[in-house]
């Protein structure tokens, strides 16, 4: 419900932003102040930020990339100390985000175009221990294959950290799955457990999200749910018609002043999109081959002028 309201609000705000009269490139930059772009901890966002920065530079803007934690950045954008972030996952943000949008301090520019996926993943060897996978129905019968001594006779599901909300617990409760949900603590802890379990070929079932670089490094399968029309309501689904999780949206956001201060930049950012395929390929370059994100981003901009040149007009 909250999510839907948010979506409507986002659409309304985007419409408003797009309605501002377009400016010709000749006026650029409208302000010599550097546009401060937030850089977060995960590679995908670093790449999105660098690509946006590269294009804005080509348009003639001064750009500054500022390293910012995913949480404090929202306060900073709200207060005008950072100007924008091209990749914000609206499911991992909280009141700071919704309040910022409600008060107009944070302006949503629309979706980035990434198609995120959230749900439960497991390594392929689990299909030998639990033949009914990937269907979620199989989990009822082979909960013990996923169990540990602590959770016995229930299975063990590693959920999101407690401060990301309780959606995984809601789903397990709603569909009566015999699993204990263990809060993941932090992304690092979840990945450490995943790496340890796969190395020792131990059973594991974990709540996870995509795009994420782990999919480039490890072979992981998704638990499949019943297809559904429209949004999946997590808290009220039933055992036989379970739909799993409502999927997130990846938004571009900017500060209150952005559109008036740099109209052409704002218009470009409203059109700015990236695909899962593009981002996954770049993430692989950075995380696996150890290349600097700036270099990979600049390469994308150099190779895809046909795409982004339509955004700057």
């Amino acid at each position, binding site marked *: 419900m909250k999510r839907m309201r948010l979506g409507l609000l986002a659409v309304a705000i985007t419409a408003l932003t797009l309605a501002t009269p377009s400016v010709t490139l000749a006026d650029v930059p409208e302000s010599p102040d550097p546009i401060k772009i937030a850089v977060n*901890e*995960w590679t995908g966002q670093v790449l999105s930020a660098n690509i946006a920065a590269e294009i804005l530079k080509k348009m003639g803007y001064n750009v500054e990339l*500022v*390293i*910012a*934690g995913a*949480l*404090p*950045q*929202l*306060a*900073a954008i709200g*207060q005008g*100390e*950072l100007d924008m972030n091209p990749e914000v996952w609206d499911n991992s943000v*909280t*009141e*700071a985000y919704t*309040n910022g949008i409600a008060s107009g301090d944070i302006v949503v520019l629309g979706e980035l175009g990434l198609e995120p996926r959230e749900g439960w993943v497991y390594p392929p060897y689990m299909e030998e221990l639990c033949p009914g996978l990937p269907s979620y129905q199989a989990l009822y019968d082979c909960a013990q294959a996923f169990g*540990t*001594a*602590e959770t*016995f*006779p229930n299975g063990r599901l*590693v959920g999101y*950290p*407690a*401060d*990301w909300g309780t959606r995984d617990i809601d789903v397990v409760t709603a569909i009566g799955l015999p699993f204990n949900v*263990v*809060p*993941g*603590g*932090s*992304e*690092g*802890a*979840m*990945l*450490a*457990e*995943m*790496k*340890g*379990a796969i*190395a*020792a070929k*131990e059973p594991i079932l974990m709540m996870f999200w995509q795009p994420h*670089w782990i999919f480039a490094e490890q072979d992981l399968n998704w638990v499949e749910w019943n297809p559904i029309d429209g949004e999946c309501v997590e808290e009220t689904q039933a055992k036989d018609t379970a739909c799993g999780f409502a999927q997130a949206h990846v938004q571009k956001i900017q500060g209150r002043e952005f559109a008036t201060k740099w109209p052409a930049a704002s218009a470009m950012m409203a059109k700015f999109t990236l695909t899962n395929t593009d981002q996954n390929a770049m993430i692989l370059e950075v*995380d696996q081959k150890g290349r600097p994100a700036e270099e990979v981003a600049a390469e994308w901009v150099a190779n895809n002028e046909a795409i982004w040149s339509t955004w700057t007009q």
Partner: protein
Amino acid sequence: MAEGRGAGSSLSGAVVWLALLGLALGLALLQVRFPVLHAYPADWQLPLGDWLNVLMQWLVDHTKPFFRFLSWVMGFPLQWVSDLLAWLPWSVSAVAAVLIAYQAGKRPLAIFTGVSLLYVLAMGLWPDTMNSLALVAVSVPLAIALGFGLGVAGFFRPRVERFLTPMMDVTQTVPAFAYLLPILMLFGFGPVVGLIAGVIFAFPPMVKNTIVGLREVPSEIIESGLMSGATPWQLFFRVRCAAGLRQILLGVNQTTMAALSMIIIASIIGGSEDIGWKVLSTLRKAEFGESLVAGIVIALMAMVLDRITYGLATREQDMDHDKGFLARHRFGVTLLAAMIAAYGLSLVVPALQVWPEGWTVDPSGPLNRGIEAFVIAAKPVLDATKNFVIFAFVLPLKIGFYKVVSPFTWGFTPTLWHAAFYVVLVVGGAFYARTRGRGGLAIATLSFGLILFFGLTNMTWPGLAALLIYFGYRSGGMRLALWSAAAMGFILISGSYDKAVLSVQLCGLAVVASFIIGSGLGVLAAESDRFSRILRPINDTLQTMPPFVLLIPIIMIFKIGEFSALLAIISYAVVAPIRYTEYGIRNVPKEVIEASTSLGCTRSQLLWRVKIPLAMPNIMLGLNQAIMFGISMLVISALVGTDDLGQIIYIGLSKGNFGIGFLAGIAMAVIALLSDQFCRAWQKRSEARLEGAYP
């Protein structure tokens, strides 16, 4: 007469204990009928968190411009220092660091510093390290100035000191994460905010040491100053400060250490490309090798700065003012000349300017493969250990034997007979202890028997409160009883009770384990110089390396959950008991040992009957510190998925709700301060007992 009264009071004490334990047992049995006993009702809580939010909002609305101005001003020195450090060729900075190390600790320290710098260069982390150093270099002088000023004020005005002491205890025990949010709201965003968080965390040791240093100047020195006609100003700076200098410089040392421990937290707020950020971002990817490489840089930085500031603090002061300028400033001149020479050379040899990329190595690949191989090999054995600890200790303390024992865990279904056997075991043990004259042990056996049967979470809150308050009364009189009541009251009213119990359960186990392991290792280290030499660098690393780094291998082996959290806390809290026990035993007076040996004590008698009892006050201090470190680690252990007060702090942070996070922080501080009071009471008793034994 006195003896008779003592016996009488201990008898009635035992009666009160038994009555209270009976009450707690009764309440625990009744809680099924009366849920109000199990969970403290929400209606009886105060919305303290909301009040805090309102207060904070008011403060932000009214003072924001001032704080924003402050952070704008502080941005300049930070920018200058980090620009300077980035501009200086590495050879110049390295030469300066090694020379200063030589001045502080002669050749060994100079070599250690040189090797550490080489490590940083070889790992290709020089620029990141310089950015972190800039943060420390600006925050430390600020913290020192602030701490010295407040310390002087506290020295002259006891009322100020009475106000400062609890404030400082709170800033040091409330986890830094709990006040990140208000700092962000007031000061804004960016590296400067990390700097400010560092200053707030780092200044208290400076205040304490300044007050102690100024106070402990012998009165003869002051009198001789007065006699030679010093003005008040001269008397303060030339006489009192000079005489207390060593203590004040120790404050500088501890302030530096505290500022360093904030590096990681500063990078959570965001900011520059520094070493803290490196550790954080590699941790997020669970890259063990990479985070270890960067974590070691922080540990090395801490060790080098610790040794240098400590060396400078304890160095013999050269008070001779009659020498010429050059003689007095010989070190400064040498340093400057060497730096200029290095700069000149770096203009000719580019490799001295920027460390060539070809000279760097990256050991993270082999490290990652190594840890993976270890996980595969060690997992089966370690899993068995883990299950044993969980079913025998962790879960009973949490939910009680009556819920833990099942065919899945202990291999049998509990019957009434098993329960009866347990009761006989506990009561019998207590009775045996009582007949041996160990009344305290008997009470402890009964209390733990009761708690382990029901589990801390199923002990009712009135029952636990009654036991705690009476325990406070017995340990430290009315004062400690009031302290206990106030602490319990706050935790209940603020609605932190459930999480606080889980925190106490986790932390309590970790502290007991740390204390047993740590004091054992400390005894070994005191008895063997070689063991002590091996242990010292391990201790230093455990205490200075960001505790996050150890989490990765721990989780890879033991999975997310309480056992991993337990290990993380122990790995950090174990260092204090090791150090204090070794120090205590090594400092037993030689005469006592000689006398005991001449009386024919064997080595083990000497250790158990003489050294350990005499070292008891120090060993207790180690326990006290283990509790403090353990509580401070709760925030870190929440990253491993625990469900205690530490977790609430993150939830507050992620919701942007200052009130709930800060309340959880205060609840942690309250637990820490109360444990501190208990430790002090026991320490006083063990000292009194010592004085009784060796008048």
